[in-house]
């Protein structure tokens, strides 16, 4: 019986611990701090933070139960899709359907994808990695994970972390850009909301149509759009309330918890702590800024074309990041003038951004695969 060997076995936890692990644990603690104290998207940041800690005290996705969860939910793409079913069941498309032109803002908010892709290429990333980084600019977690895990699975950790962290930091990232790019007068533009009536029939047909159209145009985005629209159909059909509620509650909760943990558990110091990760985090921030700028510029263009009837702030909601970006635009307008209530228009643009992100992600996947 070898006592020193036994001691070594007992000490493995300490002997395999590195400074990098300590740094990453600190990063995990910061994420949890942001979640708990600042309440930035705690439902995601808390599991990611905890997963990050786990990864650096021996429970990464390399082996063990976190690998089981990663393989079952991320590799199969099930978690992002289950989350999308739940998100779809939470989305009300009637603000968008009653003012269809808002859908254009959902296209403008995708410029960040390609701007970032180009910058990443310039920085020397190969095409597949550059595209994966660009998709952070879709500003939509499930889309980023879905596309990223197909094009460059080795970069999934920093991409997902960037996507979700910046999304939760939107109330910090967007306002200065909004103030810089719009005049006070523009922000005070009131928008009339006298929408066309939307019938239940429309709301039921819409998700079916969108599924078919987008799946034909961008087959690579088909699973994403189908999940989102399935959730929406469950909601709008009004006849499967049980399923709709399950999708919005148990299903999305559990999928989100494990998605967050699994993403966090990929953040092992050995593979995460490097210059590339820092570059991706910087590029991700760039994507968020570029998206916001493009959205606002397009908002200003629409404002001018409409003869000043459109508040350009709603352009910033077109970036996706549903529903945070929509709420934020409405809040910015109200901060200028408490009577200015543009939430409905902002949510219209925001749901359009959700559609636009999925479409753009699917097309990007097709284009890069097709090269």
């Amino acid at each position, binding site marked *: 019986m070898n006592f020193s060997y036994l001691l070594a076995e007992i000490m493995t936890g300490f002997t395999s611990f590195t400074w990098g692990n300590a740094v990453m644990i600190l990063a995990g603690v910061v994420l949890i701090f942001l979640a708990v104290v600042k309440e930035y998207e705690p439902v995601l940041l808390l599991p990611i933070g905890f997963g990050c800690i786990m990864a650096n005290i021996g429970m990464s996705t390399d082996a063990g139960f976190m690998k089981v969860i990663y393989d079952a939910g991320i590799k199969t793409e099930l978690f992002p899709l289950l989350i999308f079913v739940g998100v779809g069941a939470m989305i009300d498309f*009637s*603000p968008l359907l009653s003012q269809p032109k808002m859908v254009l803002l959902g296209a403008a908010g995708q410029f960040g994808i390609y701007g970032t892709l180009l910058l990443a290429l310039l920085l020397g990333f190969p095409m597949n990695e*550059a595209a994966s980084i660009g998709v952070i600019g879709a500003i939509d977690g499930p889309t980023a994970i879905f596309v990223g895990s197909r094009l460059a699975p080795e970069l999934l950790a920093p991409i997902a972390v960037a996507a979700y962290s910046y999304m939760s930091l939107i109330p910090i990232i967007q306002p200065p850009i909004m103030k810089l790019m719009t005049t006070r007068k523009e922000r005070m533009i009131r928008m009339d*909301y006298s929408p066309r009536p939307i019938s239940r029939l429309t709301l039921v047909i819409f998700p079916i149509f969108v599924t078919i*159209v*987008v799946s034909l145009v961008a087959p690579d985005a088909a699973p994403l759009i189908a999940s989102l629209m399935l959730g929406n159909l469950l909601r709008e059909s009004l006849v499967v309330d049980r399923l709709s509620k399950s999708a919005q509650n148990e299903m999305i909760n559990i999928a989100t918890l494990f998605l967050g943990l699994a993403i966090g558990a990929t953040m092992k110091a050995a593979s995460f702590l490097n210059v590339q990760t820092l570059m991706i985090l910087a590029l991700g921030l760039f994507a968020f800024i570029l998206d916001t700028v493009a959205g606002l510029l397009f908002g200003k263009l629409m404002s001018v074309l409409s003869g000043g009837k459109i508040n350009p702030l709603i352009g910033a909601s077109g970036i996706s990041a549903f529903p945070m970006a929509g709420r934020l635009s409405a809040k910015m307008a109200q901060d200028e003038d408490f009577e200015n209530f543009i939430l*409905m228009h902002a949510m219209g643009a925001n749901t359009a951004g959700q559609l636009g992100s999925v479409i753009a992600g699917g097309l*990007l996947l097709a284009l*890069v695969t097709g090269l």
Partner: protein
Amino acid sequence: MSSVIQQGLMITLIGMGLVFLVIIFLWWLMGLLVKVTTKAEVSVEEPEPAAISETRVPEMAAIEQLRRAAAAAVSVGLTIEARSARRRQVKTQADGGMSPWQSVHRAQQLEQHNRRG
């Protein structure tokens, strides 16, 4: 310019072009859909028109009124209280990711459920 950057620009051009194309197509489709389904409901007398043609106009009007009422309240000097009330209201909506329309819709749904049940 290196070939990979050229590729990138190409993809950007095609990608953003297609995104706008698809979105414009959706714009047209949404307009058409709303027009057709609204017309269909007006012209066709269906067995259960109440259930299907239930539009959301009245609720929207109601919320608009609510908004105006709040505004009026503010203008006569109840600013702070109303503000906090409003904020609470907005916060509530925000928390569940629900617009007022959604919550009305929910209520409707519940009601309908009760009617059915």
